[in-house]
């Protein structure tokens, strides 16, 4: 747990991590709620918007995770640690576990702010927060994979620019995918981002039957990517 403690300290002492991890999703939520006051549209209603912003916020967890691994590789801290008795399991838990409470805290703050903005307080909110857990695993897994494969510059481009945009555009948070339709919608539904958001929306709408189909997609991607990430990272250690 020493290494996990170090990861936590490194993250919470980085002002950019705190801004993008906690403040930025809240700013987006406030901004879109303001816009919604002038453009009455169901997409931007607070109940529809909050699950999307919560998922979008998690895409920054990928960036933090990948950047930390890539930085540790460049600074040779990982080289130093690879020559100690630490095992692959120690590294993987050290890089991933601290992100889970941070992701939950981010989601709780996101839903908390939504309550202040007028969302109804119901028992569905804690369920929505619980269903974010497999989404968290998915995004942290992508971070572990990218951090193991790419250098710091590539990580910033792939996780900081590409992934956040993919999450934004292909999740149905900002606009209805049905309105765009065609290949765009088909691609979006093959990827896990829209399913992550739809799962949260289904919870908030009380549509219990609508949760499971999306959950399988998220779990499938989450487990698949995490297993691949662990394999790649473990190979890196052996190399």
């Amino acid at each position, binding site marked *: 747990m020493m290494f996990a403690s170090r990861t936590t300290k*490194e993250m919470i002492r980085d002002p950019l991590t705190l801004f993008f991890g906690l403040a930025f999703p809240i700013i987006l939520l406030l901004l879109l709620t303001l816009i919604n006051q002038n453009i009455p549209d169901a997409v931007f209603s607070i109940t529809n918007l909050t699950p999307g912003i919560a998922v979008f916020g998690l895409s920054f967890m990928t960036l933090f995770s990948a950047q930390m691994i890539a930085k540790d590789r460049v600074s040779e*801290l990982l080289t130093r640690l690879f020559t100690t*008795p630490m095992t692959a399991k120690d590294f993987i838990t050290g890089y991933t576990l601290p992100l889970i409470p941070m992701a939950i805290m981010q989601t709780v703050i996101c839903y908390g702010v939504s309550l202040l903005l007028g969302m109804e307080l119901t028992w569905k909110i804690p369920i929505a927060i619980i269903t974010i857990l497999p989404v968290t695993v998915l995004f942290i897994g992508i971070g572990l994979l990218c951090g193991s494969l790419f250098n710091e510059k590539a990580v910033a481009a792939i996780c900081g620019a590409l992934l956040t945009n993919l999450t934004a555009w292909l999740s149905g948070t900002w606009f209805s995918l049905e309105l765009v339709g065609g290949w765009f919608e088909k691609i979006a539904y093959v990827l896990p981002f829209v399913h992550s958001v739809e799962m949260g929306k289904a919870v908030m709408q009380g549509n219990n039957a609508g949760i499971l189909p999306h959950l399988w997609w998220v779990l499938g991607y989450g487990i698949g990517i995490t297993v691949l990430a662990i394999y790649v990272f473990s190979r890196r250690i052996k190399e």
Partner: protein
Amino acid sequence: MKAIELHHLTKQYGGRLVISDVSLSIEKGELFSLLGVNGAGKSTLIKMLTGLLLPTSGKAVILGHDVVKESDQVKQVIAVSPQETAIAPNLSVYENLDLMAGVHGFSKSERKRKVADMMQAFSLSPYAKQRSKTLSGGWKRRLSIAMALIGEPEILFLDEPTLGLDILARRELWRVISELKGKVTIILTTHYLEEAESLSDRICILKAGEVKATGTAEELKLLTGSTSFDDAFVALVEEVAV
């Protein structure tokens, strides 16, 4: 028992030989320097000895353990201070040392005592609460070596420990390394001739992955008929180039 034994160690990338048939042995407590120009294979050799790279062929044994087959045992007795400073930038000096003591499995009370000892030994106490990223280059290197030593290794690998430091910081670090002599076996890579000559018990000259000569600085001067160690080094590496 020998600290390190290399038997025909070879590393090849594709068709390119980076380390070629290196055989040598290092005594316990010795400060052994690997000296060579850039690309000589110093860092590659260190990476193979520390289990970070697999040899293409040959064998390396550390305190009786094969580095490939018994890497877990080897990791218990070695420590590395890599070429880069290899510290956690947002952690304080104290926290960096505590992290390394923790990954070696020491209890909380042992960690506390060992960190205090190490800060005392390396004069780091005034900077205990300072974030390591704000330290100067020389102090970062000093912390890096302290982090390597906190696990009480029997063999310490110092990969270019004074690279990029000014002359004052370099001399200060030499003093720190000199004080470690005899207490732990040290394998030092450098391309500073003065550093190798003043610190080492023995020096191995590497050129293009091959051992050109091994011996004390005086023996290498005698071997080449040179009056200075600089001339001896140039004679050995030029001989290969011709």
